[in-house]
């Protein structure tokens, strides 16, 4: 007994110095990795600011695209299109995602819910261009036309698994004894679910929803085969619709300098929107800070 303890002691002492140096090195490497990751973000952001901010004028937000060769014009059609499609996708995707999350956390048991969970995870890792192709086959082909609706559908499909899994994870944090307290009061299960469990997690769920919105607002690939693009101002959901990411893409690969400049400005606006949405969500609606009161 005592000899064993002595051996362990010797071993630990011998190794102590080595461990300390190694620990220092490892900490250094890990910090370095973190710094490099962060600086990538700052580099991207900085570059987009330098390229995009100087040409940002009011008419960029209020004007429509001008024919090639003419200077000026804006991306109003793309802004409106993006807002419309993200809004439509949210109207469908948020309730659907939350409902799925509720099912998984509160009612789902056994093999079926395992499948649903697995499918949700698979769906959120499907490349977004594949989602676009899927909606192309499902909606664009039968309708014989690219449309804002099809674009929204593709965005909603991307949003649902994100919101669903986030909601599920948050609801699972609500301890079982809180649900039992509600049931023991003679409150029907569905009311316990909605008014006690869901309401208590509203802050966190809203965070997930906002991050979902930020995510789909920047998606390009799923819109390429669905909403396509539109050079003109259009709010008709059954017509091709412009969107900020696709407009940026179109302008960026075009051989006209004026268009390239505008692509940078669009990128700047888009990145700013996503950035601000992220920051607001993470600071104002931090999960675990209690609910958002009505």
């Amino acid at each position, binding site marked *: 007994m005592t000899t064993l303890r002595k051996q362990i002691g010797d071993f630990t002492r011998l190794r102590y110095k080595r461990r300390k140096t190694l620990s220092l090195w490892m900490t250094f490497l890990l910090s370095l990795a973190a710094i490099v990751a962060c600086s990538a973000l700052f580099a991207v952001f900085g570059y987009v600011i330098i390229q995009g901010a100087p040409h940002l004028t009011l008419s960029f937000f209020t004007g429509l695209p001008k024919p090639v060769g003419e200077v000026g014009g804006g991306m109003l059609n793309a802004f409106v299109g993006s807002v419309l499609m993200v809004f439509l996708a949210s109207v469908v995707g948020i309730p659907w995602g939350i409902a799925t999350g509720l099912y998984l956390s509160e009612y789902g048991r056994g093999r079926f819910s395992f499948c649903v969970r697995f499918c949700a995870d698979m769906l959120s890792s499907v490349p977004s261009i594949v989602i676009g192709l899927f909606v192309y086959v499902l909606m664009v082909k039968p309708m014989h036309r690219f449309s804002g609706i099809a674009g929204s559908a593709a965005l909603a499909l991307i949003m649902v698994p994100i919101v669903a899994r986030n909601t599920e994870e948050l609801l699972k944090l609500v301890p079982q004894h809180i649900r*039992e307290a509600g049931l*023991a*009061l003679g409150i029907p299960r569905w009311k316990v679910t909605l008014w*006690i469990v869901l309401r208590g997690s509203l802050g966190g769920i809203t965070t997930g929803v906002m991050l979902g919105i930020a995510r789909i607002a920047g998606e390009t690939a799923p819109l390429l085969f669905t909403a396509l693009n539109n050079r003109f101002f259009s709010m008709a959901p059954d017509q091709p619709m412009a969107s900020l990411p696709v407009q940026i893409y179109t302008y960026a690969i075009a051989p006209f300098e004026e268009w390239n400049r505008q692509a940078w400005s669009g990128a700047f606006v888009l990145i700013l929107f996503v950035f601000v949405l992220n920051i607001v969500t993470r600071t104002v609606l931090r999960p675990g800070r*209690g609910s958002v009161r009505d």
Partner: protein
Amino acid sequence: MSESILKVENLNAWFGPVQALKNIDLEFSPQSVTALIGPSGCGKSTFVRCLNRLHEEVPGASAQGKVILQGKNIYDVSVDPVLIRRKIGMVFQKPNPFPSLSVMENVVAGLKLAGIRRKSILMEVTERSLKQAALWDEVKDKLNQPGTSLSGGQQQRLCIARALAVEPPILLMDEPTSALDPISTAKIEELVVQLKKNITVIIVTHNMQQAARISDKTAFFLLGELVEFGQTSNVFTVPREKRTEQYITGKFG
């Protein structure tokens, strides 16, 4: 001897294939306090959770037998467990106020979700229930603060007020003081004695002195079986069963 308000006949309960309660027969008389004692894992919690049909909410759990409340078996297929739970309130071992609800919202949660919205009624019930739970004086200026901001002992009394707000004739308490300090414990014991004037209390406790102090009758459980049931004074002084004597004198458990 008055008619019993709750009568348990041949109750059996399972967690999946494991039987947790075996052939329990027990009666509770109105306006009395019954203490349930026994070593950990003997089925006390399972037993009280069968009385308000909460047991069946655990995945895989089931119960069989009769629990007759005011002449009607609560395990009849036609009986809605929700209505049973409004008549049989419950306080848990760990204080569990609803997070993100204020003190007042916690108290009236049962009423509000049953559709009662009138401000004056809700306010009245809040005051009455909190007074019954001996908490009113401490929280009357904090009604809009989160329920979870109270101390542990206050939270437990808040949970008692929440259960009392729906005016159940029977209150189940599963080790309500085991997570609390002695002063809060004393308050809750005092409260139970007061409650007895109006309602029936069934309280699980690990604390022999507590059982002796507050209860009229005591039931001793062991390994899922009811070993002894009788007047508290008899159970603690002249137990019929050897195993009861061994338990209350600290020989095991």
